[in-house]
Structures are given as structure tokens and as C-alpha cells.
């Protein structure tokens, strides 16, 4: 069935996949907010939310409902279009990243082999970079359109922070890409799944560390949550926002956290690879093997998300100049060094 | 020496870039101004030596350039000239360079990088290299122009230069894109096969060349794209103006000639209208405005526009006569300009009044300055005369119908005598007490040597041209 030279079956297959992944991301982000409160509670030795439903499991829905029901306020002197565009962009950029992530191996359904990846494009990880670099527009536009000095300052902080750490992030990744020789995320995972090949974190420990720190900075998570520093900037770039627009900003942050956890798991921890288990010997398990892979990826992601929260409730915030110093004077040279050493070792091994 | 398209003039390019880095790092170790200047001079000698080693086939770094650079006798000779001129320039004004700001070593490093760009321009064989060469040559200049941070005029000039420069680079890139669309190549020497394959789009080629022409006119400050020149030359610290107006400008002309030597045919008939138009406008804008200037520095800026008009004559006959002419012009004009600017930087007051009575206080300065200015005006017995002669002759050689243009140029040269002689008049025939900063004997000796060179070349231009053919 082709019309306008489109394969419509493929089209709907991808559409369903996209819908599933987006809803899954949203659901996970929803429960991440819950998890954050619970983790904070545990770390601070208190029970945390426990009224709505068993163990407070319905709390996120209550929160969501509260956000939606609140009054929408658009400041008088703000630029209305941009004011709405800000949170929308933040959300879109956060969700767009999941398009290139390999969520699992191929599954067979209704006689069609479906890859659990929306698009295994040639440039893979660069696409992620492209989208991440756009995420900053959500913050900048929102902060500027609010017509509030604190928002603007926070937005500028956020933008400069994101740009500074993007550099170190990119360079730390280059070292990884030298080893893998490909940008396709699917290919990177498959390489790590090969028997006798360790996860990339073994080959790139420094690269991983740098990437992790930069991911914290890119997600605006503590200790890099300068754009939202309450005690300096009231409430940060979303000070003027209310209702679901505020919800979008907060949500985008959690989705970002989720996606960067997925990317770290994919790049450095074997993606949907099941540890200490040779998938090739159990190819007859079919769809179950693929699903086990997805579950395995999710377990890795949950561990990362927990780590994100653990750090948040343990480490205080940086001062702004410390943040910049760390980015430019520590992370960047370290990333360059890592790249040089990796390059030299690869050259030496090939000779 | 045959033209070897595969091997470029790599020694000068590689060494000037590396030396720039060495210079920059040297700034960390060496703190004294004198030490930095000494290092720069030593490095320049090394650069000149490495280049001459390649020139005489003693030592060169072989690199497969895939036709990006082409070695030619013309380019090599030009490189020798500009490296020697830079050496002379640094010897003469090195003290002033380190005095401009706190980054002496960096200024020299930027000068070396700029020189690297100029050497690329003298040997490029591909429009990508043209673009890179132009950029490498001009980006350090933006910085040097605005290096006098406390001076508002210097900042303004730097910004203006930067904006104008980027704008013209945009036009250059547009031109290169259209050229690529028309020929399917970046190379300036197009092979036949590629041409035929792209016959359908060949129509884009003249437009692309026109864009490149406009952009390069910008870079060499030919009218009507000259408006940035007076402000930038005036605002920049005088030492750097001297560098910009000589070495950089002539390198721009070399790039110009190289491209239009091969490609002026593709511009078609419009070329015949465009070139005289630009030449006349440039001569007009340069000479007439220079007459009304009160500051010598600004007058020199306008006169450099006028000289650009003369140098454009080389495009008429870029094959042999024009090439010889541009060599001669480069040497004559650069020597004289470096000399006048060196004197200018020593002056306390840049207006004509500031020169009043210089002959009495500093006779050597006044005498040498007179020779430089005579050469700039193109008076016989100085190098400037033969330079102008070759330029005009190249136009006549192309076709005698250009006679009218030559006559116009001669008339403008006569106008230029007026404002040049005002300086001489101030130095010799006006009473005053021209104040200068401290002048070392070494500086005077160098000035005398430059003046002697100008006279020697003016008497026997064949000395220089023989070197070219030797």
C-alpha cells in the first residue's frame, strides 16, 4: 500500500512506536517526580508522600491534576507568543531525543519485524546533540518573554551553562566514537553485546565520568541547578509561569533526566544488553529475549535516575563562577586529554 | 622552475604558522619588550631562510596538496618580497609594536599568522584556499586594529573593519558558491572535461566571478568599496596601519591577479567596462579626498586607495607585464609606505603642522621622508616612477585603446603630487618645531638604507626584475 510514495504500513508502525515511546517517557517522568520525593524523604529520614493511594502511588496524578486545574496567568507586559512557545519548545526538545535511542532488539509482531527504535539514522548521537542544543531555547525564550529580570538572568545562566558544558560533553564523546567507529546508537549497542567485548565504560572510564557530569549540567540538576537557584533568583526562569506551562518546564526537566540516563546506559553500559548473558545463544527465545533486553535497559536507567536524585539531595549547589571554572578549566582540558590519549592508544594498537 | 601543481609553497606557509605559535609561546617565557622584539626578528630570519631554501631547491617539505596550492616562480618571488619587507618593517618599527599594548608577543604572533595568509594567497590554486588565505590574513588584522584598547578610535576602527570584512567575506563565499555551481570545481584552473559536464550551469560562472571581484575589491579597498579604509587606517595604531597598507594590501592584489589571469575571459565583455570604471572611481576617490585631509596619517590612508587604483592596472595584462609591474609596485610602494609610516609613528603630531620644520630638527628623517614621498608620488629617479610606468604600460600593451585611461591616471598622479608635496613643504619651507619621540641611530641607518634601495630600484629597476627571472 503506497500512496505519495510512502509505505503506509511502515508509517503506522512507526507512528504506534512513537506514541508508545512518548507515553512511556511521560509516564516514567511522572513517576520520577514521585520517586524524587520519595528518595528525598528516605535520605532525610521521613516518610514522604504516602496519602494518595497505597504508598502514595497516586500522588503524581494528584500533582498533575493540581497543575492543570490552576489558573493560567500570562503577565501583561510579556510577549504572549514567545511566552507560550518557551515551555512548548522545552517539552518538544526533551521528547524529540528519544527518536534515535534503541530501546531493544527487533520483535516480531503480526508477521512484521519491528525494530524497537524509531529511526536508526546515520548520524545517531549527533542528532541527540542537535536536539539537546535546542533545549536551551526553551529556557531562554521563556525567561526572556516573561519580562522579568530574575527570569532573564536565570535564562542567561542556563544558556551559558548549557553551551559551556556541551563542549566538554561533545569532546568526551569523540573519544568514545573513536573506539566505536560509528555514530549509530544501534550499532554502538550491538558492538557492546558481542561476546568478549566489554561495555564501553571499561574502555572509557574518564570519558564516562565527564559525560556524566556534563549530563548533570545539561539537565540543570543539582549541583548545576543555577537557573533555578531559589535563594538567588526567586524561582529561576519559570518564575512567571503557572499552571500547566510551569508543569511543562518541570516535566521537561524530568524527561531530560530520563533521556540522559538512557543515553548514558546506551553509550557506556551496553544499552539493552543483558549483563553476563550471551544473547546469541538464546536467539530462539524470540520476542521474550527482546523484552528482557528492554527491561534490562530500564533497570540501568532506574539506577541512573536514582543516582541523579542521590546527588541532588547530597551535594550543595555550585557558585556561578565555580561552575564556569569547572566547565572551562577542568572539564574541557580533561576531555581533550582523554581524547588525545584515546587517539594515541588507538593508533598504537592499530600499528 | 616548472609549475608543479601538486606541490605547494609549503615551507613559507608551514614555517610562518609554526613560528606564530613559537612566538606566542615565547611570550610566556620572555617578559621584556626588547627580548620579544629580538625573538621576532630571529624568527623572521628563520622564516626567510626556510623560504629561500625552498626557492633555491635546497630543502622543502613535500606535501601532496591535491591541487590546492601551486608553486609558481611568481608566487615564490612575491613571498620572498613580502617576508623581506616584513623583516624590514619589524626591524624598523619593532619597538613601536611592543609598545602598543601589553601583548607584544601576541601582536607579533598575529603578524606571523597574517603573513601565513599572505603566503597562501600567493600560491593558491583553489578557491577554498583563496577563502582561507583571505581570512587568515585579515582576522589577525581585526585584532591588531583594535589593539589599542584605551583608544576609542582604535576600537571603532576594529569593529568597523571586522563588520565590513565579514560582510565582504560573505560576498566572497557567495561568489565561490556560484563559481562552483558554474564549473563544478573549486580549482581555478578548470580541466576541459569538468567544464563540458557543467555546460548547462556555466551561466553562473560570470556572476560568481563578479561576486569574487567585488569582495576582493573590498579587501584591496578599491572604490566604491573603499569606505572602510580611511577610518580603519586612521583609527588603527600607526605601526599596524603600515603593515596593513603594504604587505597585506599587496598580497590581496596577488590573489586578484592570480584569479583573473586565468578567469578574466569568463567575465566576458562586462569585464572591459567594469575594470576601467573601478580604476577611475578608485583614483578619483583616493586622490581627490586626500587633497582635503589635514592629518598626514589620514592622507596616507586615502593615498593608499589611490595606489590601489594604479595597482588595478595590473589586471589588464596579468600575464607578464602586469606581473613584473605588480612586483615592482609592491616593492616600491611598500618600501616607501613602511618608511613614511615609520617616520609618522615617531611624530608627536600627525597633522601637516606637526611636520613643520622637521628638516631643521631632524635632517635625516626629513631627507629620507622626502625620498619616500617622492617615490609615492611617482617622481622619476625613484622606484615609484617605474612602478607606475609598468602599470600604465601593461594597460597600453593590452590595447592602445586604453590610452584615455592612462591619460586619466597620469592626471590623477599629478593631483597626488599636490598633497604629497605639502608634507615636503611643511618639512622644509615652514617654520616650526616638529617634535618627535626619541630616535635611535639604528633607526636612522635603516631609513637611509630604505631610501637608498628606493633610489637604486628607481635608477635600475632591472636589478629587481632580473632577480625575478634569474
Amino acid at each position, binding site marked *: 500500500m503506497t500512496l505519495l510514495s510512502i509505505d503506509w504500513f511502515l508509517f503506522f508502525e512507526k507512528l504506534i512506536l512513537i506514541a508508545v515511546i512518548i507515553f512511556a517517557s511521560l509516564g516514567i517522568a511522572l513517576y520520577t517526580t514521585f520517586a524524587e520525593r520519595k528518595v528525598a524523604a528516605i535520605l532525610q529520614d521521613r516518610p514522604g508522600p504516602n496519602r494518595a493511594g497505597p504508598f502514595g502511588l497516586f500522588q503524581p496524578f494528584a500533582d498533575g491534576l493540581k497543575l492543570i486545574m490552576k489558573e493560567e496567568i500570562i503577565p501583561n507586559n510579556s510577549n504572549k507568543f514567545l511566552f507560550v512557545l518557551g515551555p512548548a519548545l522545552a517539552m518538544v526538545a526533551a521528547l524529540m531525543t528519544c527518536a534515535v535511542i534503541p530501546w531493544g532488539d527487533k520483535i516480531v509482531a503480526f508477521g512484521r519485524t519491528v525494530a524497537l527504535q524509531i529511526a536508526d539514522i546515520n548520524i545517531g548521537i549527533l542528532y541527540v546533540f542537535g536536539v539537546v542544543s535546542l533545549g*536551551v531555547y526553551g529556557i531562554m525564550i521563556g525567561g526572556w518573554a516573561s519580562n522579568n529580570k530574575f527570569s532573564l538572568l536565570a535564562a542567561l545562566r542556563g544558556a551559558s551553562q548549557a553551551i559551556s558544558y*556541551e563542549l566538554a560533553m561533545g569532546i568526551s564523546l569523540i573519544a568514545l566514537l573513536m573506539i566505536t567507529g560509528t555514530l549509530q546508537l544501534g550499532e554502538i549497542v550491538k558492538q557492546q553485546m558481542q561476546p568478549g567485548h566489554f561495555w564501553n565504560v571499561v574502555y572509557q572510564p574518564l570519558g564516562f565520568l565527564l559525560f556524566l557530569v556534563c549530563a548533570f549540567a545539561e539537565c540543570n540538576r543539582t549541583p548545576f541547578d543555577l537557573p533555578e537557584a531559589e535563594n538567588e533568583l526567586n524561582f529561576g526562569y519559570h518564575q512567571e509561569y503557572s499552571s500547566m506551562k510551569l508543569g511543562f518546564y518541570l516535566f521537561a526537566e524530568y524527561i531530560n533526566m530520563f533521556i540522559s540516563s538512557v543515553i548514558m546506559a546506551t553509550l557506556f553500559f551496553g544499552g539493552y544488553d543483558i549483563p553476563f548473558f550471551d544473547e546469541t545463544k538464546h536467539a530462539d527465545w524470540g520476542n521474550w529475549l527482546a523484552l528482557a533486553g528492554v527491561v534490562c535497559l530500564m533497570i540501568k536507567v532506574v539506577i541512573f535516575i536514582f543516582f541523579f536524585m542521590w546527588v541532588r539531595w547530597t551535594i550543595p549547589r555550585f557558585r556561578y563562577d565555580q561552575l564556569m571554572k569547572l566547565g572551562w578549566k577542568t572539564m574541557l582540558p580533561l576531555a581533550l586529554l582523554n581524547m588525545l590519549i584515546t587517539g594515541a592508544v588507538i593508533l598504537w594498537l592499530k600499528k | 622552475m616548472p609549475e608543479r601543481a601538486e606541490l605547494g609553497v609549503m615551507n613559507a606557509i608551514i614555517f610562518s604558522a609554526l613560528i606564530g605559535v613559537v612566538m606566542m609561546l615565547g611570550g610566556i617565557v620572555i617578559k621584556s619588550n626588547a627580548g620579544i622584539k629580538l625573538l621576532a626578528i630571529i624568527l623572521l630570519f628563520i622564516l626567510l631562510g626556510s623560504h629561500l631554501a625552498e626557492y633555491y631547491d635546497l630543502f622543502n617539505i613535500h606535501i601532496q596538496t*591535491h591541487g590546492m596550492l601551486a608553486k609558481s616562480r611568481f608566487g615564490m618571488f612575491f613571498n620572498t618580497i613580502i617576508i623581506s619587507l616584513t623583516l624590514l618593517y619589524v626591524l624598523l618599527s619593532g619597538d613601536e609594536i611592543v609598545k602598543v599594548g601589553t601583548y607584544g608577543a601576541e601582536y607579533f604572533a598575529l603578524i606571523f599568522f597574517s603573513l601565513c595568509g599572505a603566503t597562501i594567497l600567493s600560491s593558491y590554486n583553489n578557491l577554498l584556499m583563496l577563502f582561507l588565505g583571505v581570512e*587568515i590574513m585579515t*582576522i589577525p588584522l581585526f*585584532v591588531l586594529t583594535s589593539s589599542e584598547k584605551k583608544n576609542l578610535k582604535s576600537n571603532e576602527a576594529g569593529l568597523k573593519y571586522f563588520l565590513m570584512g565579514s560582510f565582504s567575506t560573505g560576498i566572497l563565499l557567495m561568489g565561490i558558491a556560484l563559481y562552483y555551481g558554474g564549473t563544478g570545481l573549486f580549482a581555478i584552473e578548470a580541466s576541459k572535461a569538468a567544464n563540458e559536464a557543467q555546460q548547462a550551469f556555466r551561466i553562473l560562472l560570470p556572476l560568481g566571478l563578479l561576486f569574487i571581484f567585488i569582495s576582493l575589491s573590498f579587501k584591496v579597498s578599491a572604490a566604491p568599496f573603499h569606505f572602510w579604509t580611511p577610518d580603519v587606517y586612521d583609527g588603527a595604531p600607526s605601526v599596524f596601519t603600515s603593515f596593513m597598507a603594504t604587505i597585506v594590501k599587496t598580497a590581496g592584489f596577488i590573489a586578484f591577479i592570480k584569479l583573473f589571469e586565468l578567469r578574466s575571459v569568463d567575465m566576458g565583455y562586462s569585464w572591459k567596462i567594469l575594470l576601467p570604471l573601478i580604476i577611475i572611481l578608485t583614483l578619483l576617490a583616493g586622490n581627490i579626498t586626500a587633497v582635503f585631509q589635514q592629518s598626514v596619517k589620514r592622507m596616507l590612508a586615502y593615498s593608499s586607495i589611490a595606489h590601489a587604483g594604479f595597482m588595478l592596472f595590473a589586471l589588464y595584462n596579468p600575464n607578464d607585464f602586469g606581473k613584473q609591474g605588480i612586483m615592482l609596485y609592491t616593492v616600491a610602494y611598500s618600501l616607501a609606505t613602511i618608511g613614511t609610516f615609520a617616520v609618522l609613528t615617531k611624530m608627536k603630531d600627525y597633522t601637516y603642522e606637526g611636520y613643520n620644520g622637521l628638516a631643521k630638527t631632524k635632517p635625516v628623517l626629513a631627507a629620507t621622508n622626502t625620498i619616500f614621498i617622492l617615490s609615492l608620488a611617482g617622481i622619476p629617479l625613484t622606484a615609484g616612477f617605474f612602478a607606475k610606468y609598468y602599470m600604465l604600460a601593461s594597460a597600453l600593451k593590452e590595447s592602445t585603446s586604453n590610452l584615455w585611461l592612462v591619460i586619466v591616471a597620469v592626471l590623477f598622479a599629478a593631483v597626488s603630487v599636490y598633497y604629497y608635496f605639502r608634507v615636503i613643504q611643511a618639512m622644509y619651507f615652514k617654520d616650526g618645531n616638529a617634535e618627535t619621540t626619541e630616535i635611535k641611530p639604528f633607526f636612522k641607518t635603516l631609513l637611509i638604507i630604505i631610501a637608498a634601495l628606493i633610489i637604486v630600484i628607481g635608477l635600475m629597476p632591472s636589478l629587481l626584475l632580473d632577480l625575478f627571472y634569474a
Partner: protein
Amino acid sequence: MAITEIIFWFLSALAVISAIMVVLSKSPVHSVLWLIAVFFAISGHYVLLNAQFIAIVNIIVYAGAIMVLFLFVLMLMNLNKETEPQKNLWMKLTGVVSGGCLLIILISLVRQATEIKGKIAVTKTGDIGLIKVLGKELFSSYVVPFEISSVLFLSAMIGAVVIGKKD
């Protein structure tokens, strides 16, 4: 009409309209935002030509980094109000005339090129834009300009330090 053709026309229209809006917008911030839209449209064209790498680099470098810095400066300078001085009428008129002349030349050139007529861009073919091929080209035929551009960046960096550092 194939879907690629529809996308092509859509992207072209988007690019041209956004580019016009860049010039027409009163607020500089809006101009920058429109410019970002232009970059996206152009990246879309690259994707149509199967030049994925160039497309994404265009977004990362231009839309993601350079334009953010532009916005940065504009927001800090608070250029929201129309502080731009009115140009005089003659300037505008000359601008229109010279721009129009260029447009006429370009149009007449394209019209003369009869061979181009009726041809549409070749989409989704060729792999020169893919990173593997591009990398090989860059490090073989174009290695000299590639390496020499490092001199350009080095001098620009030195320049930035010389200008930007406090005395």
C-alpha cells in the same frame, strides 16, 4: 507529486519567508528566532539531499550555539524596544534599487539557463553527505585546507584573548 517534492516546496517556502521575516522584524530577538527557522529549513533541505551530517552540524553549530550567543547578547543589551535609528529615505531607496538590480541579474541568469528548466533536485541519492564519505574526502583531497584552517582558528582565538582580556 511525490512526498519529497511536497516537503521540498514546503521547506523552500519556509526558508524564504523566514529569511524575509528576519529582515522585516522590528525586534532583534524576533529576527534571531526567524533566523533559527531559516537554519532549520535549510537543514531540512540537506536531509532531502541525504546530507545528514551537514544537516545536523548546521543545527548544532548555527542554531544550537551561534544563535544562542546572538540571543544572549541581544537579551543582555535589552534591545527589545525599537532603538534602531530610522535610516533616511535615500538610503532605503538606494538599497532597494541595488538589491533589485541584483535580483534582476540573478533571475535573468536562471532564465537563460534553459537546460535547468524542468529539472528537479535529485533527492535521496548520493552519499557524499554521509559522515563516512565526508570524512574520507576531508582527510584526503581536502586535507590541506582542513589543516590550514587550524591556523585560522588559532589566530582567531589569540585575537579573542588579546581583545577580551583585561589589561
